[in-house]
């Protein structure tokens, strides 16, 4: 009996060791948290931790989507613009709703319109990449400027405002209001993002579709010759990517209670950095939604923590770059070792 216990302990220790070896990002995350909480005790305040979840929400949605496309071996740099477009179109649609619509109707319209816009643009990207064989970087570069242009056309160049307060429920309402925290503890936006993370993580890691995404990203020829409709998989992944970006855009516009044509500009860069920090290979074939979200958390924590430590904002840019590099280098070193 004792022996068994002993080996079990070793087993758990090894498991933790193996996990942290595989996931350099976890170490970075813990270390940053410890560093920042020493730097300013406010960092660990519950209200700050909750703020962190809301601050990373938009980037998290963009990261989910781009993780699919990067695992596929592609890239989508249009997600920032698509998010903005989804925000603008959704705001316009919701402004046109009759006064006094219920909250449920509002949320359905917001997500429905947003996801349709995003999935539509994703499908356009997918079509360009699969049918017309346009290099993903170029196809999505074109979408980037098209979507941004449409943002300004639809909005007439200014923010779409004059939205009812229930429009902002999704992005800024919080549950469990208390005296100490009159605005509430649990943000709706956090719940929404967590739901999407769980669904999209399971879709990628547990389903046949997910297996086919990895296979297509690992070696498209092999996947095709093994009976996978790789064109369809690629198309669907770009569609998912657009849809997720659009949810991010809707959440953003709900948070700000208006649809801004200039929103989420260059957010794609943070999403790419996040997912790469989370171990997604830019060569395709490997990565995970959950770990990519850890990458998002690192970006959010760096921003939040450096502000709390009153680090000069010029230096913040430098540090963010350095940490992105360090995280990726650590990850690469780990992969080389395990090979």
């Amino acid at each position: 009996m004792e022996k068994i216990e002993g080996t079990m302990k070793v087993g758990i220790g090894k498991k933790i060791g193996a996990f942290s070896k595989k996931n350099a990002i976890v170490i970075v995350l813990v270390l940053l948290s410890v560093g920042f909480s020493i730097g300013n005790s406010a960092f660990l305040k519950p209200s700050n931790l909750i703020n962190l979840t809301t601050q990373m929400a938009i980037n998290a949605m963009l990261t989910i989507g781009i993780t699919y496309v990067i695992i596929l071996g592609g890239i989508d740099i249009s997600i920032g613009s698509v998010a903005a477009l989804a925000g603008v179109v959704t705001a316009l649609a919701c402004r046109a709703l009759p006064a006094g619509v219920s909250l449920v109707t509002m949320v359905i319209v917001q997500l429905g319109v947003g996801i349709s816009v995003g999935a539509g643009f994703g499908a356009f990207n997918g079509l360009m990449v699969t049918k017309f064989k346009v290099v993903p970087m170029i196809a999505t570069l074109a979408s980037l400027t098209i979507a941004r242009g449409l943002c300004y056309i639809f909005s007439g160049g200014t923010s779409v405002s004059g939205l009812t307060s229930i429009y902002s429920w999704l992005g800024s309402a919080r549950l469990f209001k208390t005296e100490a925290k009159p605005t509430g503890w649990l943000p709706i936006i956090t719940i929404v993002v967590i739901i999407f993370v769980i669904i999209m993580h399971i879709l990628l890691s547990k389903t046949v579709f997910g297996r086919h995404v990895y296979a297509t990203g690992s070696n498209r020829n092999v996947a095709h010759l093994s009976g996978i409709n790789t064109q369809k998989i690629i198309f669907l992944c770009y569609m998912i990517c657009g849809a997720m970006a659009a949810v991010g855009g809707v959440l953003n516009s709900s948070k700000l209670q208006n649809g801004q044509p200039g929103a989420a500009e260059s957010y794609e860069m943070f999403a790419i950095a996040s997912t790469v920090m989370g171990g997604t290979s830019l060569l395709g074939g490997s990565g995970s939604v959950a770990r990519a979200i850890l990458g998002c958390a690192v970006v959010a924590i760096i921003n939040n923590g450096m502000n709390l430590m009153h680090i000069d904002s010029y230096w913040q840019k430098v540090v963010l770059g350095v940490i992105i590099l360090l995280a990726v280098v650590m990850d690469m070193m780990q992969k080389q070792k395990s090979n």
Partner: protein
Amino acid sequence: MKPTLQAINISKTFPGVKALTDVTVDFYSGEVHALLGENGAGKSTLIKILSGVYTPSEGQVLLDGREVKFTSPYDAISKKIAVIHQELSIAPDLTVAENIFLGSEPKKGKFLDRALMNEVSQGILDGMGVGKSIKATDVARNLTAAQQQMAEIAKVINREARVVIMDEPTSSLSEFEIASLFTQIRKLRDDQVTIIYISHRMAEIFEVCDRATVLMDGRLVRTQMVKDSSEAELVASMVGREIGDYYNRQQHTRGEEKVRVEGLTRKKEFKDISFSAYAGEILGIYGLIGAGRTETMETIFGARAQDSGKVFVHGKQVNFKSPKDAIAQGIGMVTEDRRLTGLMLGKSVKDNIVLPSIPFHKKKFGFANKLWEGQAAEEMKEKLTIKTPSIETIIGNLSGGNQQKAILGKWLIADSDILILDEPTRGIDVNAKSEFYTLMNDFVAKGGCIIMISSEMTEIIGISDRILVMHEGNLKGELTGADINEQSIIKLANA
């Protein structure tokens, strides 16, 4: 006569592995020296030391009796030691002349002296006797694999190399191209160049090599004159035991018709191909590069679209739009190039083995059956004796033979009863080949049908029940029983 290049008591240790132990070999000028051994025997480590990629942990390399210490491949090149790799290292968008002079371009003033470059290159090609088919101004991409290899040899000649190391130079060449390669090798030998030749094909060793050094598990077994040895003897010393009938030849009983092809045509690739393949037989397809064998088979598999003709599988006419349809009908295909079209190199053995079968075993709501995946992969690992630490090991880390077994396993798991094998034993060692043939025989004995493309004459004769010969997109003939011999094959393939 003094040796040109000597390896004296060389040992090489990598973290956790001793790749070479106390190996001593002399190489003389004007000899073709074979380096033999199974994968992992230490051949590549030795040539990497001789060409400056690795530095030895112990021992010395002597050139003309003087010790040389190479710290990079560049050092070896400057001492006129050249390597022609298995995967050709030609720059596809440069011309032949530009490739020949790559890194040592002649200049006139500040500018490239293109005229001189072309003139010298053409001279070398003419000297090799290939000047008619390869022009110095041709772009390398447009050459065949064999012609590209000739360009590499021209590069070596241009550098006046004294030692040329060739690592499996024939792996992508057909029988006839190999013959012209051997002509060049003999010419180099007559010019007193030292040639170190690595190949898994025993027949070639006897045809072109003077002496052979056998390595096993990083140690020197022996160095001897090739003409004083026999294939069986060399193979035995490579694997450390007698290996008996290499092809494990078995009598198969032909069953029902599995595949029938009528007038299959794909413009510019092959035309009017008609044949049948049966259960319980291995059908060999022979032909030169460019004969259209791979193209025909990929068309049957649904990976290419046919222009006209009919394909029947299990007696029913089919029209495959993609490999997916073919797989659903029980066809599996092991492709020619493991790295490009056979494997997901960065994925585990398990992921590779179960790939085509995942959709057949899915659970509710499209969830993948993880439990089944593990069991299936484990079963194949046992059944095919795939040597891997675990099914979770990254497949790129396995030897070629074990990778090939895993690919075979992937189609066995998918319940394929028709297997198309395209050069299935390319680049795998003797022992693994022998095991692979056994697996093929087992598959056919259970009523499976195998169509095997091979460019290796001894292999196709050794294992096929029936042979089809193709030439320039046409089916030239069929050989069975006693008609299966080298002469009749060459006659058909050249017609």
